[in-house]
């Protein structure tokens, strides 16, 4: 086994920023807005680096698909301990319509090219909340998947994954190579400290085009309209139960 881990990292709008919809309702405003690494991707990077520190894998490669600025996100992953980066250049209209299907095709192609043993991704991105890339990648590669992982341990050539599911926790054992997606409680990501950022400048980031990987970026989805959620209506206080029932009847709810 190659002992190589591919980690996908996505550059998303920072979670604390107030989102604004463009006046033409086509998309969300991203120009100049603060971006950072998707929190679940940070957890994925941390897990990969931890595996390397335990000497269970040999190399961690950080991958990001996007425009020029995605390189900053890869640098952060390098500062956290990834060995090298791959920047898959996607910009303009292609980037606006980039979704899980295309990204999983790219990840699958890269996994084959790099002979990866694991692909670790965040369970979902906080901008689209799709929760699809990990699963699609596993399907395209015909690899087993351990999604919503809150605990990962390697046992020889198999992986034990504790998954967070609706009813509680599910423990599965899967073969390698495998796709894992990180959930919140998997670990606490380390900080990318300044000395590591400086060292990361010396690590390599390769530039790749999707066409080089034989991936077609056409989207099967067309975004028709983006809207803000409806404004919260003010509530009303009532004095008695009779009042409440009367108001509910008026509103047609009862």
């Amino acid at each position, binding site marked *: 086994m190659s002992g190589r881990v591919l980690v996908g990292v996505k550059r998303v709008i*920072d979670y604390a920023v107030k989102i604004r919809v463009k006046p033409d309702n086509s998309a969300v405003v991203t120009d*100049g807005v*603060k971006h950072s690494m998707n929190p679940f991707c940070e957890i994925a990077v941390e897990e990969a680096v931890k595996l390397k520190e335990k000497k269970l894998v040999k190399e961690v490669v950080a991958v990001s698909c996007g425009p020029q600025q995605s390189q900053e996100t890869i640098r952060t992953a390098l500062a956290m301990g990834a060995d090298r980066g791959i920047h898959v250049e996607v910009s303009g209209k292609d980037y606006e319509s980039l979704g899980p299907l295309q990204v999983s095709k790219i990840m699958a192609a890269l996994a084959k090219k790099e002979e990866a043993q694991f692909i670790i991704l965040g369970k979902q991105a906080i901008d689209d909340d799709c929760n699809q890339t990990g699963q699609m990648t596993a399907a395209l590669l015909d690899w087993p998947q351990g999604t919503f992982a809150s605990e990962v341990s390697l046992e020889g050539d198999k992986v034990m994954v504790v998954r967070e599911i609706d009813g509680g926790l599910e423990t599965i054992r899967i073969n390698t190579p495998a796709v894992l997606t990180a959930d919140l409680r998997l670990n606490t990501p380390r900080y990318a400290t300044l000395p590591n950022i400086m060292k990361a400048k010396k690590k390599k980031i390769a530039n790749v085009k999707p066409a080089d990987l034989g991936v077609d970026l056409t989207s099967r989805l067309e975004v028709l309209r983006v809207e803000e959620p409806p404004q919260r209506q003010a509530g009303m206080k009532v004095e008695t139960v009779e009042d409440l029932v009367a108001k509910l009847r008026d509103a047609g709810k009862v």
Partner: protein
Amino acid sequence: MMFPACRYVCKAHRCIRALTTLRTDSAAPQLYTSIHRRTCSSVSTPRITTHHTIHPRDNDPRWEGIEMERFADEADVVIVGGGPAGLSAAIRLKQLANEQEKELRVCLVEKAPQIGAHTLSGACLEPSTLIELFPDWKERGAPLNTPVTEDVFSIFTEKHRIPVPILPGLPMQNHGNYIVRLGNLVRWLGEQAEELGVEIYPGYAAAEVLFHEDGSVKGIATNDVGIAKDGSPKDVFERGMELHAKVTLFGEGCHGHLAKQLYKQFNLRENCEPQTYAIGLKELWMIDEKKWRPGRTEHSVGWPLDRHTYGGSFLYHLNEGEPLVALGFVVGLDYSNPYLSPFREFQRWKHHPFVASTLEGGQRIAYGARALNEGGFQCIPKLTFPGGLLIGCSPGFMNVPKIKGTHTAMKSGMLAAEAIFPKVTAENLDSETAGIHVPEYSESLKNSSVWKELHAVRNIRPSFHNYFGLYGGMVYTGIFYWMLRGKEPWTLKHRGMDANQLKPAKDCKPIEYPKPDGKISFDLLSSVALSGTNHEGDQPPHLTLKDDSIPVARNLAIYDGPEQRFCPAGVYEYVPVETGDGMRLQINAQNCVHCKTCDIKDPSQNINWVVPEGGGGPAYNGM
């Protein structure tokens, strides 16, 4: 040393005595018995401050065995702060290095997560300095897109406005200037600097000044990360990094926290007046296209402030392809009524018919606030010390009547670069101290346009301290500045520190502010949300108190807790204690927008703002 408001002191004592054991909450597990300076009983004040600058880690058992050594690196010049001054200095250094084919390592650290994210200003830029720095700024794409076309000045009354003609020669005349979104200009400067080879590290705050054994400045250390809210180390704890330099430039902006230390360390303020400040609050609005007049600048004074409270407003129509206006309100921090809330003055000013007519039908898309300098010439400290120097709004070069400080900040950065360049690239420099002293910077500043400008307007702001307040100031400006260009032989003094100007609450009338209507005026918390501010929650609050008991014992008792009104982000709240009577101060550090007003205006000067983990704070976009 009795306080004048004895009645309030006794009331506070009764409250405090009535405090029973407080229920501990998970975030602050330790109770503290603080020793009162005055009389009275043992008091249980809940522990608020856990930061290591107030509670050192040397004897703290939780820190035993933790590796505290720091990684260190050397540069030729280190610049603290990626604002107009810091970036101009960095750019000028690299321009000189490239011209003279010399190697020069310039490192710049900035606490914001990206360059420009903590920048907030009106702003009406005088392009003179930018032209000096980049004669080809237009070709390079500097975002100066809105030349000023109209200049409107008004005195507001509650319902009306009195137009004031802006005669050529008055400081607030804006012909030839540009309305800019300063955050975007700063971001552009950052890109230019990187292209020239400056190493820029956003997201890393300079937290500590380092000294050589001979007392000169050695450089800075960035903040530690991974300390929990109660001050103990987390698993992810990592020490900050040390950056050593021959000269360190401090460009932290108005009221920098490291500059505050340096003033004391090197006694830089012994021959100047204490700095005075104002708070500026700003919003960006997308307005109805029909009301959009690109290039129009509007300024007002008067309502809602009374003639003794310095302040005024601005409203600029930008011209960047969409109907965007930048508007804001400035209140001098030498105000005396502790019931005054700059935020609520701003919100109610927007309802003036002249302003509301522009905003009706529009949408607010951004909010922020920052303190700014008002002291001018009389408050410029000694600017150089062995190993470092101060640039930009940190020492303070703002031209107050013009309300412009960006061009002078940039100029000071450039002059600093020109002064230190020969010294840091010299082959065998004979320096008395390990950190190089560059007094040539002060000299060149004194001979520059910045000095002349600030000298000419030095008496305008202090002239407001007269019986007629605002109107007296305007008359003074008209006579002495417009006609005599500031050549009068005297220099008026300011009133002293802003923190000392508050009158006790009992001597002042509470102000009845109108409720926000949710269309033109808004509440504080929804405004703070728009600033995009956030901090890692599990870290010691960076608003540190030298004495945790003073807020309730003094600020609340005498001044009715002015910090809950002057903070533009709702950081300070006096809430009832969980059991028993009395109040306690709650610090919502995560809301902080790094404006520095609390450090300036706290009447007890008990609040010491220190830098939080880098990357935290507002996420301004082109403010």
